[in-house]
């Protein structure tokens, strides 16, 4: 199957007063049509910066994409000018964000925010666009949509706002939906509803999804393949079942072990990864996970490890063979 999106050697830095922040370091990944890829990582891993670079949403200055090629449907997105990328945003590639209260326009009715992209990208007139907006809201579970379409964001709940965001995101039937922690700010029961909505829509229109989260539970139930990021690099990549069954990178192993599990017997003490999250300014010469790793060897200090294959489709960047 051909690749819908192919990211090659992407590096993003932020030039700040305190120093140069190496947010994303030389990453490579791709997505196929109708595939759902999860990007997992904690604060500072670079997952948000990485996907925002795809549609040039990085504030520049202080951010700068210093290297890379992002191939989407045969076009290098990084070579497009602002008008060209605007035609793609909300249209072929859509993004939904974490906190709907801060990403929805508080002074516009929710219907108008959806209609805006329908008019611009699909060139619909007011009547067509309004009808489509009502259909989209119904699709996301806001019912009866014709009575809610003229509400303002502050008049609806967090779960509903996120649904409006999803409706905006899928309005133009995008080929790729980027969901950046779409359910983190939501309660568990609402989260379950939203994940359900997104998956149903994906089946309906056949779009690919990049799902960013720090929640491994959400990943387990919602994606086909997982990329684990740490300190700006991808440290492991595998199909979801394989990653959970057979994690190879010490960070992935540690992460999986340190989550309290509701389905398992209680351990006396929770496993925890020692040390602190990485400093992205003073970037270490060797592996960025060295100081927190229980398996490190001398070689790890000299040069960052390159990818090696565990088996088909499973890559990880570590000198040591931890099993």
């Amino acid at each position: 199957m051909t690749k819908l999106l192919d990211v090659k050697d992407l590096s993003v830095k932020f030039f700040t007063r305190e120093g140069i922040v190496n947010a994303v370091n030389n990453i490579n990944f791709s997505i196929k049509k109708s595939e759902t890829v999860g990007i997992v990582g904690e604060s500072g891993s670079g997952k948000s910066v990485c996907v925002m670079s795809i549609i040039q949403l990085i504030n520049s200055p202080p951010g700068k994409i210093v290297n890379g090629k992002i191939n989407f449907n045969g076009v290098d997105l990084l070579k497009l000018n602002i008008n060209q990328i605007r035609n793609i945003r909300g249209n072929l590639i859509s993004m939904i964000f974490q906190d709907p209260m801060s990403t929805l326009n508080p002074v516009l009715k929710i219907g108008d925010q959806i209609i805006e992209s329908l008019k611009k990208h699909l060139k619909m007139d007011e009547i067509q666009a309004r009808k489509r907006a009502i259909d989209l809201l119904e699709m996301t579970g806001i019912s009866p949509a014709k009575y809610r379409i003229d509400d303002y964001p502050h008049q609806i709940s967090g779960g509903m706002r996120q649904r409006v965001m999803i409706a905006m995101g899928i309005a133009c039937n995008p080929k790729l939906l980027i969901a950046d922690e779409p359910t983190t700010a939501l309660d568990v029961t609402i989260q379950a509803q939203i994940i359900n909505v997104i998956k149903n829509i994906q089946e309906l229109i056949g779009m690919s999804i990049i799902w960013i989260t720090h929640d491994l539970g959400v990943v387990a139930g919602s994606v086909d393949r997982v990329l684990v990021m740490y300190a700006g690099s991808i440290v492991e990549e595998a199909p979801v079942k394989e990653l959970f069954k057979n994690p190879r990178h010490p960070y992935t192993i540690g992460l999986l072990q340190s989550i309290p599990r509701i389905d398992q017997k209680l351990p006396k003490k929770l496993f925890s990864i020692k040390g602190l999250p990485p400093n992205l300014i003073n970037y270490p010469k060797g592996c960025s996970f060295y100081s927190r790793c229980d398996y490190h060897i001398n070689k790890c200090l000299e040069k960052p490890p390159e990818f090696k294959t565990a088996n088909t489709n499973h890559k990880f960047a570590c000198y040591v063979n931890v099993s």
Partner: protein
Amino acid sequence: MPIDPNKILLSVNNLKVYYPITKGLFLKKTGDIKAVDDISFDIFKGENLGIVGESGCGKSSTGRSILQLYPPTEGEIIFEGQDLTKIKGEKLRKIRPRFQMIFQDPYSSLDPRKTVCEIVREPLDVHKISDGKSRNERVKELLNAVGLEISSMKRYPHEFSGGQQQRIGIAKALALNPSFIVCDEPVSALDVSVQSQVINLLMELKQSLGLTYLFISHDLSVVRHISDRIAVMYLGKIVEIADRSELYKNPKHPYTKALLSAIPIPDPIFENERKKKLIILQGDVPSPSNPPKGCNFCTRCPQKEIIRREKGIDCDEVEPVYKEISAQHWTACHLF
């Protein structure tokens, strides 16, 4: 320290916390946000009672009003035999060292212009405990207890990571040797790999210092790990309370069941299997300023129709009674 069922450290009786809604220039009161709407529970000495619930359920308001950070609208808070709602001013100040709080956002709960030493020392200074030199010694002792280096004393909060800032917050909460600590979402703002460090620390301290905790969280996996008993809150009411293993094995209230079924498990095979049993709730949470007349959960409850058919009760109209259905297991639902 084993839980002594005969020693109740804290009794909360019919607690109500209502926030007024005001309108207009003269702030005329037009209604109330019923954040906590008549709840009662006991906490035993040496216990860790967890309160879980989603945003807006009233769990933080409960914690804060117990500590008298926000005055309860109604109800009694009996702590070590005294009703805190009836004590004011200097008398209340004298008991405050006995109960403390650890906050959710470690960064905004620490004064950015004070050094770690000044922050952890502040409770000792305010209550005039011994003298300067011994206070500094006590700070060193506390930093040691939470796993921070003595060199931290001269540094400022922004120089530390989230997990370390939370440890500073914990050290400060322990300064006056409290017997009871309210932990309000103490690990929610931390990365997963750091959460477990702080949870382990809280458990060790409880054991070594004989503390009693009220542990507030929306994360059921964390609460299961650290709590002995758990109360589930929804829209200002306690819908269920039970022993830890009992609650997760035998949830009774439909909301508890839905909540437990919605927690994502980091296991793809398990998740695939579970999709078949997943309870997806329809509808949204009602507003706390206008809760339903009957059961608070009636707008989303998957059991409503069954109750109407089999018991002839209209959940929209009749509020269920909170009662004990088996040993130490309480719930409020017309099913029981």
